[in-house]
């Protein structure tokens, strides 16, 4: 087997060193912060609204998801902290979303967080919903929506109405792409929301709970004078027996979930990508070490091979071009039985690194091997020497390769993600199948200190041109402000709240998350490209 022939990496980490201890302590503190935020997101609308929901004999959204997925199966939640600390939003943005296994099929699952403002959609609900939709489309996943939503958050309609429309288009486009769409209606799904079931391939409605209509009784009375009830207008019985909007009438919530599972079971779904190898060797080094390896201060570099040794099968890694452009580590490995090509940053990107990276991406496409980007990048090298040797051409070449590559790609941000380095290493805009971050990572156009420093130089130059004296106090305050702002904005919690990633993960879970992400991204055929944009040589 190919894997077993790859050499086992050696670890040189000092597990008792001061740096290791410091990193570990600080990363654990960051994880505690993450746990607290996730806890808050799991609480949904909080004790009061959860109690009210439960008192109505309903399952909480997360309970619905838990019942829907297979026993002992994983659930990879996506963007659980969307909207975190953003005014007007609850952490999670009123949607529980992620990939889970239903009747043996990896599905995109979304559930309205009915305990938060009745499941009403906010601006970030639309953004997160869009990401979940992209994820389903990109990976070719059947989707199951568990609906109980008051619709748009009307006071904020201006931020929702226009972008929110894509949800319905996405549903039918995915259906057109032959990825089934299943809608389980547990409660209200009215007005525009009525098109959620309306646009889905399969619809299940819960008896005496589902309400699906374009206009409710008050609006109908206003419009036509007709007097009706919610149940008559859009109850599950009516839609299942009369209108045909519902395909299955569920006795209760559990019955609806059971029906959802039954629908997936009958799809006879087959993944188009190749399966993983049967025998999987666990890494020889503990994932626990990652907390001491990952720098809590992004200015301190760490050897990516130490990370690779803790996430690949058997800690094995076949390095490509190890002597050329060594600041970009490239090579082949297996993760949970899936072959991957890994690009990992061991420093700034130089011209050689970019050329090497572009070639490596071409090679992965040549042999249909998915790509894993491990980011810790402060950017491309700058300076006269590098401009002369055409670092722009090399960088462009790498970005060209990243952009046009068609094999699945997964990005993990485990340190810095600054500048064009973010782009060349498959940042969010480069549409990797999945993108997760570690709690120590920082993302921005550049570091706060650097940006403040650049600003300082520009201000002084301007003052010189104008022949004015530099107001040192004013400049100092400005620098402090900008540095503070950039630092705050490059915080991983700021980033994940804005859905710049699919979530912050515990570094120790990286291998597991990658195994799941690789499996999910093998739903569609894995086929590399040979066609690229024009490379500037």
């Amino acid at each position, binding site marked *: 087997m190919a894997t077993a022939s790859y050499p086992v990496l050696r670890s040189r980490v000092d597990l008792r060193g001061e740096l290791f201890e410091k990193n570990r302590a600080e990363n654990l503190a960051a994880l505690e912060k993450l*746990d607290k935020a*996730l806890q808050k*997101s*799991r609480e949904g609308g909080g004790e009061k609204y959860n109690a009210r929901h439960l008192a109505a004999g309903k399952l909480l959204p*997360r309970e619905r998801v*838990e*019942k829907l997925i297979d*026993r*002992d*199966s*994983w*659930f*990879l*939640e996506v963007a*659980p902290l969307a909207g975190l600390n953003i005014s007007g939003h609850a952490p999670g943005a009123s949607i529980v979303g992620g990939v889970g*296994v239903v009747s*043996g099929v*990896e599905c995109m699952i979304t559930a309205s967080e009915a305990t938060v403002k009745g499941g009403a959609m906010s601006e970030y609900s639309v953004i997160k919903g869009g990401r979940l939709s992209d994820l389903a489309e990109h990976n070719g996943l059947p989707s199951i929506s568990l609906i109980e939503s008051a619709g748009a958050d009307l006071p904020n309609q201006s931020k929702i109405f226009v972008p929110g429309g894509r949800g319905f288009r996405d549903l039918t486009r995915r259906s057109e792409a032959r990825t089934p769409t299943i809608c389980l209606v547990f409660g209200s799904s009215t007005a525009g929301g009525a098109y959620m079931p309306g646009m889905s391939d399969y619809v299940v409605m819960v008896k005496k709970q589902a309400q699906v209509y374009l206009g409710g009784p008050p609006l109908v009375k206003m419009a036509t004078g007709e007097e009706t009830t919610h149940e008559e207008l859009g109850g599950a019985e009516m839609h299942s027996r009369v209108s045909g909007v519902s395909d299955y009438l569920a*006795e*209760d919530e*559990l*019955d609806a*979930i*059971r029906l959802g*599972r039954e629908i997936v079971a009958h799809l006879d779904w087959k993944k188009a990508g190749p*399966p*993983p190898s*049967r025998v*999987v060797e666990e890494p020889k080094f503990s994932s626990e070490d990652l907390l001491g390896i990952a720098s809590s201060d992004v200015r301190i570099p760490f050897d990516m091979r130490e990370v690779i040794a803790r996430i690949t099968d058997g800690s094995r890694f076949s390095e490509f071009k190890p002597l050329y452009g060594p600041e970009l580590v490239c090579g082949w490995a297996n993760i*949970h*039985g899936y072959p991957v090509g890994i690009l990992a940053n061991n420093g700034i990107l130089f011209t050689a690194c970019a050329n090497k990276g572009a070639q490596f991406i071409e090679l992965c496409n040549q042999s249909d091997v998915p790509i894993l980007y491990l980011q810790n990048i402060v950017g491309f090298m700058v300076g006269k020497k590098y401009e002369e040797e055409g670092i722009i051409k090399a960088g462009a070449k790498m970005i060209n390769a990243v952009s046009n590559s068609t094999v699945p790609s997964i990005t993990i941000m485990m340190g810095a993600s600054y500048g064009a380095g973010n782009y060349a290493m498959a940042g969010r805009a480069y549409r990797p199948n999945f993108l997760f971050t570690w709690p120590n990572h920082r993302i921005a156009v550049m570091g706060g200190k650097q940006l403040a420093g650049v600003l300082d130089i520009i201000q002084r130059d301007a003052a010189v041109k104008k022949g004015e004296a530099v107001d040192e106090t004013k400049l100092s305050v400005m620098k402090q402000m900008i540095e503070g702002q950039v630092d705050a904005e490059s915080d991983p919690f700021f980033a994940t709240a804005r859905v710049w990633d699919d*979530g912050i*993960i*515990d570094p120790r*879970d990286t291998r*597991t*998350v990658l*195994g*799941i992400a690789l*499996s999910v991204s093998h739903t569609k055929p894995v086929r590399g490209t040979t066609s690229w944009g024009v490379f500037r040589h």
Partner: protein
Amino acid sequence: MQTNAPTAAPAAIHKLLVANRGEIAVRIFRTCAKMGIATVAVFSDADEDALFVRVADEAMRIGPAPSRESYLRGDKIIEAAKRTGADAIHPGFGFLAENAEFAEAVAAAGLVFIGPSPHAIRAMGLKREAKITAVAAGVPVVPGYTGEDQSNEAITKACAEIGVPLLIKASAGGGGKGMRIVRDLAELEDAIESARREAESAFGNATLIVERYVERPRHVEIQILGDAHGSVVHLFERECSIQRRHQKIVEEAPSPRLAPDVRARMGADAVKLAKSIGYANAGTVEFVVAPDGAYFFLEVNTRLQVEHPVTEGVIAGLDLVEEQIRIARGEPLRFDQAALEKRLSGSSIECRVCAESPRDGYLPQSGRIVDFHVDAAVAGEDWLRIETAMESGDSVPVHYDSMIAKIITRGETRTDAIVRMRRALAALSVHGVETNVELLQAVLAHPDFAAGDFDTHFLERNAEVLLADAGASLAWAAIAAALHGEAQRSSARTLTPSVPSGFRNSRYAPERCSFACGERVVEVGYVAEPGGFFRVTVTGADMFFDRVRRVSVLGAKLVLEGSDGKRFAARVVPDAARTFVRIGGRSLTLVEQPRFPDRNAESAVDGCVAPMPGKISKVLVEEGAAVKAGETLVLMEAMKMEHAVKAPHDGIAKEVRARVGEQVDGGALLVIVE
């Protein structure tokens, strides 16, 4: 008296047919194999896949499942013997073993009957006749009535003379069928009626006898062997006092509390009685022994006994079936009484493993044995003998006896035999139907049993202790079931097989499963951690577990380690929604609660249901009649016993579905009560 000298002419036996089923058939075949005799099994439709049919050299189907249409059809059995060329028939025990007409018919067909002569069967088989014979032979008998006048009046009169407590029993019977104890003469008429009905249905003979009922009695029996040349020896006693519903479940040899002189007199009396009728072949003389050592003749079983292995266990090299065959061939006994005395050594115990519900009045159970397993730790030991015809996957048919297996141990001393029996029972897993294994374990562990201080009421008297619920292991059993289930699901997983079980990147609630065990429900929650560890919670069992390590799973065998380092080995056998767990010497049946309601389940209708599969023998209620809670509405016959099906509450019998003579499934609705 009619002469009964059996022909001493040597009869050759080359091929032997066993007119029986189950473990005794297998046991007899084994001796045949040793003696170079070919074997023939006969079987009913219910037994077509049974082990005893497969191990025989030849087999022949003789009819439908009910024994009256198969194993009691002597004509079909003799026909089968002729068709297969068998020259002898061994009747085993039960069925036709003590049927003189059958023995005659066998002889008339020119075949050898392995057992005593028809005359001896008649003289001893019928309790009434036997008692008269015993009195004539000078053997002490319990005062009683064996009169030919079987009218209620005559029996009632006799009963009044003897005085209560009384025992009414079927003259033709055995095994407790058709037997009633009467402590108050007011109950007499009902007792006579029902005993007569049961006697008629079980033996085709309604004749009853009455006798004085001895309080605190022990049941001790003497094994005898007589040959066709007039020699009779006894093979000492068997103590058979541990009984439920007048049926033995634990037997041993020798009896732990029998004075040597009493034993000697009983042996001599048994021989005397046998000689008085020229008894040839194996038989058992049963006595009831009073606490003061007084003993009374009860009856003679003119056949091999279920518990014969304990006698074989204390007499080195003895094979009673072999002796039976040799006697039937006309050979003289190979030993005299003195030789047997020399061969006698050690102690032996037998436990009968039965499919029954000890907590539900020992109600017989039927169904599929999902798991029949003896742990390797004891399986090959020379002190252990297991007589069974069961294998995992076999069924206990509703039509026959509920015995699944006999476990026999022996040792130098009684204590050795008990210790070994306890080990053997702990190593035994029988799952799929409810059994008495835990009860047997409790009996063996009881101090009175260890002291030999018991009588035939031991089980009733100690029921509370013996049937106590072992709740303590429920939590562990549920954890074992949950983690065994997880291991099975994980190994069957094709999607991301190497990804940890139940992974959540955002740390959700644990995976949960609920199990019902009787009326208790236990919910187990677990989260998998690296290294085979699980964080486990248990609710509904008053226990909280922190971290449990699943050390190994090998098929049904699961080893768990608690956070205190203590390991538990469990045997876990899932069968659809049920999971059978054997842990810490206890057996638990856990029913996993469905994750989703079954949409097709019929909503429960109120009424009385058949407790088990069986045949409706009497319908006592009419449609529209008012019924009282506990009133018997239907009588049904199952596992050779009569069961009363009672009204669950006061109400009106809205619909009577039960029809007399109809075979119904367990759980079938018989009467709807509103």
